[in-house]
């Protein structure tokens, strides 16, 4: 139902990335979730894509005429949950 989505609708709440920005990233050559993430920051915020990833997948798939299981998934990077710099600074290097 991607054609019913306004370009200004927010998809990634944490980084405030819109449908239009994701579509532009696909036009720019992004072929998967990681490509869109690198171009737009969608999925790089507080929730690390737990909320928006499926919607991002659906938009990429729709734009490319693919199925949702053909556009990949994001890679995980620690910390997977928010952490303060103070906690990191206090941590021992091991």
């Amino acid at each position: 139902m991607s054609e019913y989505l306004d370009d200004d609708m927010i998809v990634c709440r944490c980084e405030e990335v819109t449908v239009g920005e994701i579509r532009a990233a696909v036009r720019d050559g992004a072929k998967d979730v990681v490509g869109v993430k690198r171009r737009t920051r969608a999925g790089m915020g507080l929730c690390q894509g737990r909320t928006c990833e499926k919607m991002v997948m659906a938009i990429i798939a729709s734009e490319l005429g693919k199925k949702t299981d053909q556009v990949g998934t994001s890679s995980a990077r620690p910390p997977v949950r928010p952490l303060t710099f103070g906690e990191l600074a206090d941590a021992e290097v091991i």
Partner: protein
Amino acid sequence: MSIKMTDLLVIGAGPAGLSASIEAARLGAKVIIADLNMKPGGQLFKQIHKFFGSSAHHSGTRGIDIGRMLLEEAKSAGVQIWLKSTVIGIFPGGKVSIEREMDDGTTELVTLMPKELVIATGASENAIRFKNWTAPGVMGAGAAQTMINVNHVKPGNKVVMLGSGNVGLIVSYQLMQAGCDVCALVEAAPKVGGYAVHAAKIRRAGVPILLRHTIIEAKTDSNGTVSGCVTAEVDDHFNPIPGTEETIDCDVITIAAGLKPTMDLIKLAGCKLTFDGPFGGYVPIHNEKMETSVKGVFVAGDSTGVEEANTALDEGKIAGISAAEALGLISETDADEKRKEIWNRLDSLRMGPFGQRRKIEKEHLIDLYNKEVKEQKAFA
């Protein structure tokens, strides 16, 4: 601070994680279970309704009581329960970093090197995009359920629920019990998704169930918070039909559009994934022991395919037994016997119109493992 060693670390103290830790501890393993919440039990502590199924699966017992029971069992089995303990990463060499809140309220980073690992991180709610879906007042049905059943706070007064699966039906009913007015239940499919017994409760209460409808917009007031909900009929391809829009006055919109397995730590552990639509998205492939493509890393519950608390409990048991086997605490023959009994019980849960599909998907994950994993990767 130094690196702490333990036999088994279980991540996530929901039904899957708790039962894994109980099984392994009873077989003699030194077990730590970590959960980021203040209370253990996962979603069980929100389930004030009674469960279905057989007596082996706690039928007739409320979820919250099953949670309490598991917690007592874990404690008496000697499991160390670390609450307010968030796993923030899994690093090369099998190091697991945990942000742990101490008794004095300060936090510190603790590094554990477990010999075996069970990842039972559950699932998170799917979002649905419509105009203003990010406005305050739009929330997951599970979030609303936490507010009323755990925190005893009403999310608002007039609720429109999207999705008529069991979560949508049960949470609608519980919202009414909490004193909210459920104005409508909106469902894109031509029929109700959940069990008839739950749907009947909603219908008897006089809540209109709008089939073949979807939400296309949240109306907001001058503060930007939800003040209404625009619905529309959908065609056979679930596209909204122009001209059929109607606005319902409400201050909360709850979304019960299914769940997706939480993959971040499973990805960091290096487990091989596959996309499985009926199971909610990407899931790790695993064998009959619930072991992933990474040696010593086990999975159980919703994080390996969204199902129910009952199946999570049993998968957790299998993972716990297998972890104990890997630690040399139980022979393969004895472990196989225990596992076989549980798999048979799981088969009886995965029957009927809702269960059959899940049995097929579960067998598919195990088939994929047997085909694709020739040699497991090392974890530690």
